[in-house]
């Protein structure tokens, strides 16, 4: 945050704005206020368990699934398969939910999937300006930046500026398509297969694919000549 803005907020003397400034200085507000929500959640959980409304083991199972089983490695496998298998890619672009289900990735927040393809002419970028909609079965739970006010506010009005902040400068001639996830459709970007990856198999290709490339804030980096995959 700029000193000018910090100065303004201090002069304004608004408690909430100062809290926000404080949170922004630390990057993520949940790191600023760790103890209070932790205690409140603990108290709520024991209340719900005591009332017989929730089963603690079910909570453990849910946390375990999202920490260990559901994440961007799933999406990377989809992308790699689409790169090596033209028929699969076709199915993915025409009926994404079914094509993704072929690899076993289905369910919460991926019930209705769409895949949008990046090409040398078109770059796709996904956002949810209204909350935090994100394709969980293929990318896992969203990172903090995706859910943050800066990304949600700017991705639609200044996509090229946002991409620049992620280190991606697009040529003027490239068409940028921003997908605002306002309904129950969930979007996965199919990135361009990087130069130098022609000899790689599906598994090695999957290892190249990043979460950011599947949201559309990055490209999959080209492979340097001579580098071994």
């Amino acid at each position, binding site marked *: 945050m700029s000193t000018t803005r910090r100065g303004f907020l201090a002069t304004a003397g608004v408690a909430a704005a100062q809290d*926000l400034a404080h*949170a922004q200085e630390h990057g993520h507000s949940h790191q600023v206020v760790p103890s209070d*929500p932790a205690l409140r959640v603990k108290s709520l959980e024991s209340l719900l368990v005591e009332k017989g409304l*929730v089963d603690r083991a079910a909570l453990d199972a849910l946390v375990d699934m999202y*920490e260990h089983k559901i994440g961007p490695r799933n999406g990377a496998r989809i992308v790699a398969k689409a790169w090596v298998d033209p028929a699969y890619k076709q199915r993915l672009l025409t009926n994404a939910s079914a094509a993704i289900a072929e690899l076993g990735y289905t369910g919460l927040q991926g019930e209705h999937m769409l895949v949008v393809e990046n090409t040398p002419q078109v770059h796709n970028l996904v956002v949810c300006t209204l909350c935090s909609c994100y394709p969980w079965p293929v990318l896992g739970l969203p990172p903090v930046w995706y859910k943050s006010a800066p*990304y949600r506010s700017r991705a639609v009005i200044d996509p090229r500026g946002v991409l620049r902040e*992620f280190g991606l400068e697009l040529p003027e001639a490239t068409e940028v398509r*921003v997908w605002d996830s*306002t*309904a129950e459709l969930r979007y996965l970007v199919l990135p361009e297969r990087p130069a130098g990856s022609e000899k790689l198999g599906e598994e090695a290709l999957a290892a190249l694919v990043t979460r950011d490339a599947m949201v559309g804030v990055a490209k999959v980096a080209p492979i340097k000549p001579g580098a071994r995959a």
Partner: protein
Amino acid sequence: MNGIHDMGGMHGMGPIEAEKNEPVFHARWEGRVYALNRATGAWGKWNLDASRHSREVIPPAEYLRMSYYEKWLAGMIGLLVQTGLVTQAEVDSGKPAPGSAKATPRLTPAMVPQMVSRGIPAIRDESVSPRFRTGQRVRARNMHPVGHTRLPRYARGKFGIIERDHGPYVFPDSNAHFQGEKPQHVYSVRFAAQELWGQQASPRDSVYIDMWDNYLEPA
């Protein structure tokens, strides 16, 4: 509602801060909030749209101050109390009211994998006729409902083209308020960036927004 959650196009929110090697949950309590949402949601007392709305009604200054899972926590407590699963007094004390009946959890550990992999589809096969067709020029309605809506402010009154008909989906504006699913067609509508933002935007760029029938009028 014209709330702070409807952020598309706002200025002044600062730079995007991406964390390297970010964990799924930054603290144990975040994972518990996520899981408690699912486990209490299994009681079927509310729906996804009501759940989104429960976070939109957080006062704006608080909304901006709170972290993501604090908002989830606040929204969930709101729904738990509103639907009568717990009372505010129980939330405050952390103890069940004396003499209250003990329930049996709806979500068991064995049910978790299937619950996650089945999901909660929002598409409906009821035969609802679409009011618009692919390729048609439309205008997003200039409307400002005080309840839940998924029509972002930055698109209201703007002209776009129907790119694709996704079929009939549960209508969030009614469903969030427990007034029925009222399925209607959802379309992918393409808006030229310059239509939304004027000359400062690139003439090549566009924003695709998924919109229900009720959000649109012929143009």
